[in-house]
């Protein structure tokens, strides 16, 4: 049993060695949104394969988690870049400024949120109000808010098919859910006086089914279940266009063109934020961002379009590049 003693000794020494000295970092560290993750890791891979730099580590922590890690401060233990499927919040930027972090904002493109259904189902032509009334916890009836009684789409709007309402969507932890609440529910409820402002509470009586963070699971359910509709990102619709189709929202079909031009109402911008303090300290950050904002990646025919990114209009892409070239630091006023 001598080996056991040696084993124990080795264990202890490894533990203290590693805890005592953290290696100088030569690899870019990226955290943040799971929506931006596929694009970010695609560029990271391309960067690793075509340059002599090490491939950056891209972690999928969610937008909020990413800003939290990014905002911990300056130094090797903090990430260099955070991805975000929404703009940085004022609170988060304020924290960055207090910690001495200089934040550079880079916008990379759009992501549409679609309401999809089985290809064999009858088309759905919805307004945002229809969707709100289908999924809200409470709806206005005769000037009062009551618990949502709607079970069929045609009860909301007679022009809709008589089909049971069943919606598979993201759970509360998801950024897609935040965007859906903001872009559909809050926008539509603002215009209905009974709600008295923004309303984003989703019903919990089994009509809206939180289906987990994995959009592929929702896709699989829609393939089997012809009554249901599902809420997820545009890239999953594109990849499954042989078996799913999207609902039309406010008379606009979710196509890449309509999302890019801003016609399709349920679309959000995607960003990443660079820690300016780390430029020149961690090798390769500049080159990585250069590659990311290049026409080859986020352009109208860039590689990221193939995996579902909806590119910015050309003029905006040029502005993004110019701002990055000037290393423009984000200020609180810019968010207003």
């Amino acid at each position, binding site marked *: 049993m001598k080996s056991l003693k040696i084993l124990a000794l080795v264990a202890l020494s490894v533990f203290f060695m*590693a805890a005592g000295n953290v290696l100088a970092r030569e690899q870019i560290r990226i955290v943040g949104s799971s929506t931006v993750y596929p694009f970010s890791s695609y560029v990271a*891979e391309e960067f690793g394969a*075509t340059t002599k730099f090490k491939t950056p*580590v891209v*972690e999928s922590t969610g937008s909020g988690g990413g800003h939290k890690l990014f905002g911990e401060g300056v130094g090797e233990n903090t990430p260099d870049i955070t991805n975000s499927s929404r703009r940085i919040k004022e609170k988060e930027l304020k924290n960055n400024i207090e910690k001495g972090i200089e934040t550079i904002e880079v916008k990379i493109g759009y992501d549409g949120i679609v309401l999809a259904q089985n290809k064999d189902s009858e088309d759905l032509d919805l307004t945002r109000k229809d969707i709100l009334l289908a999924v809200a916890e409470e709806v206005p009836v005769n000037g009062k808010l009551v618990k949502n009684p709607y079970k069929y789409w045609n009860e909301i709007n007679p022009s809709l098919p008589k089909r049971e309402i069943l919606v598979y969507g993201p759970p509360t932890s998801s950024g897609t859910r935040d965007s859906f609440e903001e872009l559909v529910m809050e926008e539509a409820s603002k215009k209905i006086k009974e709600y008295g402002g923004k309303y984003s509470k989703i019903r919990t009586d089994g009509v809206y089914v939180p289906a987990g963070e994995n959009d592929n699971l929702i896709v699989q359910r829609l393939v089997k279940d012809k009554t249901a509709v599902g809420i997820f990102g545009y890239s999953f619709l594109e*990849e499954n266009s042989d078996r799913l189709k999207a609902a039309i929202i406010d008379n606009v079909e979710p196509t890449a063109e309509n999302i890019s031009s801003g016609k399709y109402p349920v679309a959000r911008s995607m960003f990443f934020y660079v820690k300016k303090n780390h430029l020149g300290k961690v090798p390769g950050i500049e080159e990585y961002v250069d590659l990311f904002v290049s026409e080859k990646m986020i352009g109208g025919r860039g590689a990221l379009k193939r995996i579902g990114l909806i590119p910015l209009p050309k003029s905006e892409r040029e502005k993004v590049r110019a701002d990055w070239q000037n290393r423009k630091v984000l200020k609180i006023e810019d968010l207003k």
Partner: protein
Amino acid sequence: MSVKNIQSSRNKKRYFKEKVFKMYGVIALFISFAFLVTFFGNMIFKGYSGLRQAKIYTTISITPEVLEDPAYAFLEDDYYYISRDEIRRLPLKIQDSKDMMNKTFNEWVIADSEVDQYLKGRPNRLKNSDKKYLDKLKEEGKLKLFFNWNFFTNGDSNLPEIAGIKAAVFGTIYVMIITILVSVPLGIATAIYLEEYAKDNWLTRMIEVNINNLAAIPSIIYGLLGLAVFINFLHVPRSSALAGGLTLGIMNLPVIVISSRAAIKSIPPSIKEAAYGVGASKLQVIWHHILPLAVPGILTGFIIGLARSIGETAPLLVVGMVAYIPDAPTSFVQSTTVLPAQIYTWSTASLRAFTEKTALAILVLLAVMLLLNTLAIWLRNKYEKQW
């Protein structure tokens, strides 16, 4: 009614009950077996095609222009069907070996995943004109499925045609080394102390209850502990094998303590007493008698704990190991990912070509588990002693 009749009717009832009870068992077995077969069948059906990969036989001509835009090296007709990885790596390849310039090669290159999926009869985005051209290539023998070595020799990729599990497998091995180094010595030492030295008082009973309790705690809690203690306090690098291994090691500790204690307890006291009787010290009794006899039991517990740790994702998510890390680690402090994390990442990818990779990686993980559990059973049978 005679006594005999009553007895026989009672017996009939008893036998009937016996039969029903047995049937319950058979039904239960059948149901679990059906689940297992469905699961395995589904995974094998989805995953087997991942073992093969389409390649195209094409001509590559290297000219100085290629350094500017590697697309020029390929035939225009074939270019769209070739994996982006073959194209983008060309300039660096040329720079690394000077004698490639101004030469022409005929080579099998990896095809794009859409081509690969088409060849396997799976859904793809190709247009009819594409399919016609590919059918022609196939007839000429210039488009074929090969064994997919890349799956085992490459790391993660966003291009399904070159994505592999090498980095994740190495990461798993690195993490497991740390897990073993942490949990085994600490676990066995704790078990020996509790069994042989500790007095039976309220404190030890408290510790015992707590250890049993810890073994049943959801694994993500250990992830949060790992984040707070190892990463935030001890500054172990995030996403490293060390951070993951320490976390899983702590998680494994109670399992090892419990199984080691059970193994030590099962040794008949007569052996200990005999050793004391001939004048052995406590240390000698433990090292010469108790530990060697307890080894099979300890090993079984250790291997089952290891199998559980290999399949663990939740605590590793918290310490940052579910990430895009394509390179296999070369040290314990480097960022790395593990097999179940890789499966999770692929299962969330939007490209459908990843379905077969996910299923295949699951099959690999299941194979490893099966191997470990078989090993545990074999070891137990081999060294088990009848008293």
